[in-house]
């Protein structure tokens, strides 16, 4: 890491962070904490807590909540682990049990309160005949009737994955190498798995995660989450502010290109320079993640790392290039990055100087990067709340606004209170959590796009907001100058951070976030969905625990998910009941490949990309621009179906005759057959065709189909029918279509239409779900 000097002392300290990669294989583990809960405690955790209290009661009935002065004050098991979580469940059970034992003239107190009776401060939280009220009633009954409680025995349910077929080890290897590195497994990797089975996979993944392609995918995947590529405007102006980088941010405009004689070429070179500079700036946050994972440093550094990543180009923008020039392997490479600590910001006038006890900018991983702060800007009235909201979502997995998903009367509250966000219960629910974190961003107060990101509010921070802090802990005054670093430290120690990162790893691998708890208890399959959700929570907790134990190694997260049942589930061994299907609704990767992933897969299989899934076509194919469109399409629309057809037609067109034009030893698709082999002529020729089809199934679809299988026979039927139908035509060209015979390495005549029949086969395979989905 390079520490830029706060003053003009010409010293650079390069710190090489070395840490060993933990590569322990995953072992089956019970859901953390579950083994120490008694049957009745577990039932409480699974029923009343999970289905009702967690969402409906805890919001107010917690320390600092609106109902903190009542008899029911609950603890949040999700912010704890191990014994502390067990203790939280026991505390909550005891609190509810105490209330459940109270019966009034109108009925059980707990049920009456929940349904709005007895002047419940929160009003009617549950409808009297709702399924949620039934859960409360059942709890009360169990608590007040010891026989009912003791007479029940633990029902033994089958595993969530009973009857679910898992991917073969070889197919898992293929899925993982394609997903992580955009390539097919090597022969050596396949041999290792044939010998070592599932146990061999983690070590192979360690090697895959050394490949450059893995880091491309890592940055792409994390941008889907943080969206920092979506900074508005030219980043040399929005990321690097006028006040603090006025003299350096426009370096490219003064860069000497006089060695290029031709004016047009010189102009083009200038454009290229500017574009690469901007791209380098935008990529810095994802390069931070790249660097942490590449060197297997604790992933907590995404929020605690006291450095940023700069390239030779972006370093010029910050004005630190001269000090770094010798540290770069290639100072002319716009995309070589080094970790650097910037000096504290110096403004055009002293009042714009950044306060710093060390003289350095107080970096806090992604959180304090100008890109993150620009991507999630504030306004005068927003007061950094957007940033606080995104912080909670990105780093603790909490969607603050979901706390506000209960009908209220915001207009009345706004009008009735002088400071609704601090006084009106329906506002306080969110703002008590949100505003202290917003206050931690207070030194990044500027919101005019033309001015700096850093800057303190002249009047001091707002006093009509809950003061700066984190979850009840106020920001110490001496930490103010490094408030985001302080927040990063709190965050790294919070169990929700590890779970959230486990969720991010799952998102990278599957394209979706871990499932949310079902919120519709009236759904007849609500119990089934709860079981599924709880199983996934258990897996998330287990993997998060291992992540922590492995010193927050992100690679460990990926490896653990890849060998998990959630990633390997691939089919059913038999038909199942509607309830079981509801339970399995979210199981299986089944991810529609993104435009980028699809291009990489085409390259892995055919040796080159299609090259057309970019820009407008990528957007049409469900891609994102990180600004307006921020979520990838998960199901294909008709427009995407049309692109799939075009892609299948065109990729087959460009590759089939080309493959035949090469020597057999260099072919990817047809190494063991020639176009002269016709179907239905002799058993040997049919066998040769089936052998080739099985090869294509393996290469394109990842299927290990026997040559005698129905799948191969079905494809054979397509090949044979096209050849047969061609023979029946009055006039057929004796060579491939002009468009499909361009760039051949040798002429490929097609007198029997077999080349075009193979093209039909490849087209057919490219339109299959096994190719288009992961």
């Amino acid at each position, binding site marked *: 890491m390079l520490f830029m000097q706060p003053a003009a002392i010409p010293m650079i300290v390069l710190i090489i962070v070395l840490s060993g990669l933990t590569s322990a294989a995953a072992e089956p583990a019970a859901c953390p904490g579950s083994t120490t809960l008694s049957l009745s405690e577990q039932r409480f955790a699974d029923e009343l807590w999970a289905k009702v209290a967690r969402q409906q009661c805890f919001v107010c009935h917690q320390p600092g909540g609106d109902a903190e002065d009542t008899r029911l004050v609950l603890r949040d098991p999700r912010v704890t682990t191990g014994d502390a979580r067990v203790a939280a469940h026991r505390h909550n059970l005891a609190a509810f049990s105490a209330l459940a034992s109270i019966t009034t003239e109108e009925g059980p107190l707990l049920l009456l309160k929940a349904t709005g009776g007895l002047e419940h401060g929160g009003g009617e939280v549950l*409808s009297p*005949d*709702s399924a949620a009220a039934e859960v409360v009633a059942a709890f009360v009954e169990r608590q007040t009737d010891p026989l009912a409680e003791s007479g029940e025995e633990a029902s033994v349910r089958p595993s969530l994955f009973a009857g679910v077929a898992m991917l073969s080890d070889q197919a898992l290897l293929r899925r993982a190498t394609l997903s992580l590195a955009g390539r097919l497994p090597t022969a050596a990797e396949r041999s290792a798995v044939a010998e070592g089975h599932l146990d061999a996979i983690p070590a192979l993944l360690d090697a895959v995660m050394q490949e450059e392609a893995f880091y491309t995918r890592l940055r792409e995947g994390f941008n889907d989450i943080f969206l920092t590529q979506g900074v508005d405007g030219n980043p040399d102006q929005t990321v690097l502010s006028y006040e603090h980088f006025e003299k350096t941010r426009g370096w490219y405009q003064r860069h000497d290109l006089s060695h290029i004689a031709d004016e047009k070429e010189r102009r083009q070179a200038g454009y290229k320079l500017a574009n690469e500079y901007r791209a380098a700036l935008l990529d810095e946050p994802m390069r931070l993640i790249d660097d942490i994972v590449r060197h297997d440093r604790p992933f907590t550094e995404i929020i605690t790392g006291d450095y940023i990543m700069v390239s030779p180009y972006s370093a010029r923008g910050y004005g630190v290039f001269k000090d770094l020039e010798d540290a770069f392997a290639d100072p002319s490479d716009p995309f070589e990055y080094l970790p650097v600590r910037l000096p504290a910001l110096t403004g055009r006038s002293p009042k714009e100087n950044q306060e710093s006890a060390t003289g350095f900018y107080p970096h806090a991983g992604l959180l304090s990067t100008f890109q993150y702060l620009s991507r999630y800007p504030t*306004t*005068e*009235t927003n007061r950094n709340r957007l940033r606080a909201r995104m912080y909670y979502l990105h780093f603790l997995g909490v969607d603050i*606004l979901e706390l*506000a*998903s*209960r*009908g*209220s*009367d*915001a*207009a009345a509250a*706004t*009008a009735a209170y002088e400071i609704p966000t601090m006084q009106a219960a*329906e506002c306080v629910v969110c703002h008590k959590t949100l505003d202290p974190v917003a206050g931690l961003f207070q030194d990044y107060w500027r919101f005019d796009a033309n001015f700096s990101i850093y800057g303190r509010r002249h009047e001091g921070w707002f006093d009509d907001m809950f003061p700066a802090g984190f979850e009840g802990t106020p920001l110490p005054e001496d930490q103010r100058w490094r408030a985001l670093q302080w927040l990063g430290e709190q965050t790294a120690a919070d169990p929700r951070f590890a779970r959230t990162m486990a969720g991010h790893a799952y998102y990278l691998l599957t394209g979706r976030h871990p499932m949310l708890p079902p919120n519709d208890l*009236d759904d*007849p*399959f609500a119990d089934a969905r709860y079981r599924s959700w709880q199983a996934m929570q258990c897996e998330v907790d287990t993997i998060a625990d291992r992540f922590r134990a492995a010193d927050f190694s992100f690679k460990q997260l990926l490896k653990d998910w890849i060998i998990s049942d959630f990633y390997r*589930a691939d*089919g*059913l061994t038999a*038909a199942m009941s*509607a309830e079981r*299907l*509801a339970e399995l*609704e979210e199981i*299986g990767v*089944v991810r*529609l490949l993104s435009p980028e992933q699809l291009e990489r897969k085409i390259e892995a299989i055919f040796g080159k990309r299609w090259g057309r899934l970019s820009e*407008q076509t990528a*957007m*049409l194919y*469900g891609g994102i621009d990180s600004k307006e469109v921020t979520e990838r*399409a998960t*199901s*294909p*629309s*008709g*427009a*995407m*179906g*049309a*692109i*799939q*057809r*075009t892609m299948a*037609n065109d990729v087959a067109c460009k590759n089939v005759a080309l493959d035949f034009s090469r020597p057999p030893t260099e072919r990817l698709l047809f190494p063991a057959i020639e176009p002269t082999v016709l179907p239905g002529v002799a058993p040997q020729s049919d066998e040769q065709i089936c052998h080739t089809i099985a090869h294509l199934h393996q290469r394109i679809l990842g299927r290990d189909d026997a040559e005698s299988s129905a*799948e191969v026979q079905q494809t054979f039927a397509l090949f044979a*029918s*096209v050849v047969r*139908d*061609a023979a029946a*035509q009055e006039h057929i060209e004796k060579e491939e279509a002009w468009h499909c015979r361009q760039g051949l390495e040798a002429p490929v005549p097609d007198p029997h239409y077999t080349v*075009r029949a193979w093209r039909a086969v490849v*087209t057919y395979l490219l*339109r299959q779900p096994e190719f288009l*989905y992961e």
Partner: protein
Amino acid sequence: MSSLTGSRRRFLATCGAAGLGLAVPVMADPEAARASEDDLPAYGGPFYLVFNAAGGWDTTLLMDPKGSEGINRLYREGDILTQGNHTFAPTAAHKEGGLSNEDFYAEFGKELLTFNGLDYSVNNHSPCSRYMATGKLDSLAYPTFAALVAACQGPSCPLSFLTFGNYSATGNLVAMSRVPYLPSLQRIANADAIEGNLRAPYHDDFALEAIERAIQHRHDSRIAGPLLPRSAQAESMLYAAQTNSKALSRITPHVPKEIPKQRLAQQVEIALASFAAGVCVSANLSIGQFDSHANNDRDQMKLIPELLEGIAYALHRAEDLHLRDQLVVIMQSEMGRTPHYNKGDGKDHWSIGSAMFLGPGIHGNRVLGATDGEQFAHRLIPATLANAPDDGIRIRPEHLHQALRQLAGIADHPFSLRFPLGISAGEELPTFWNPTSSAENSGS
């Protein structure tokens, strides 16, 4: 509401027991989304355009004018204009570009239905957007109205539900289509021809037919076997997407040669071309930046006229394309703005707002609901929509969505029943679209 939840449970349980599969959360009948290869009928309407003023419009500068100085600074009580039964804010002298309220109401007032005093109950963008788009505040699973009506009325349309932004969840009922640029329509129109040139097909006809047969055969055999629910859904949606996409060839004649400059007009052209080709049911259109926390009047006077200009453009072009009598237009925003200015001359979030509607089945020249002088919503009697401060109810997005479902004739569709809005019969708005309707014939 409570009795409904119980009845819903019984209904869904009955469906499940009867094998209808309504309660299974993957597409209830994904195969329904797949048209036969030889039968890709053009969808003929009605079509739905949902215009979103993303960020929260200032209703007092449009359909719910307030003349007091504290609420707005652009006009006084005596400046408020009328057109038929509508009252609206004068904006001709204040607008920056676009269409003034005066011109908009003069042309469309007779057809326009306005609802004022819509109670969103909360005032944050994310939940409010979701609530206004779906009619459900506390669920991430519900489809937007545009997605729901597309799934119910045109499941086999290749671009059944188009979206250009704003909250666009589909409830897994239908695929969401994003076609961001007009030229994109040309790119997808003829997928089996090289560069879209019909005279240069990739495959000879007999070969392409063999490919399609083989794909169908494999799909049918795979879908018949036991599959994980996600796999079954993916298989079906993929097959439907590819098969139904052939109908996109019908779009070509409807793609205009010139691309309009205005951002809403561009969205409108894509949607109308898709409507005209019979490949689309609904489109979710959006322009943002209404969130005028600073300089409210300046920003709103750019954006409201731009929005109205876009709506007028849609209606004019629909006329040209002979789609006007089948076009339902919904104009909405996720919230209103406060009845006072902040220190930055902006207005913050306000949980009371308005919506406007226009199209077949909608009796225009009407203003329903109201807000008082401080911009609080009046309570209404659902059956008559009369003001009733004591025994009326707050009209919230779920009430409008139930009415929209009824207008579209999909209130009893299995997809709608899977996503109930919790509106009891007594809370429905039978006279919302037609003042002469009654509860008995409000008809789902």
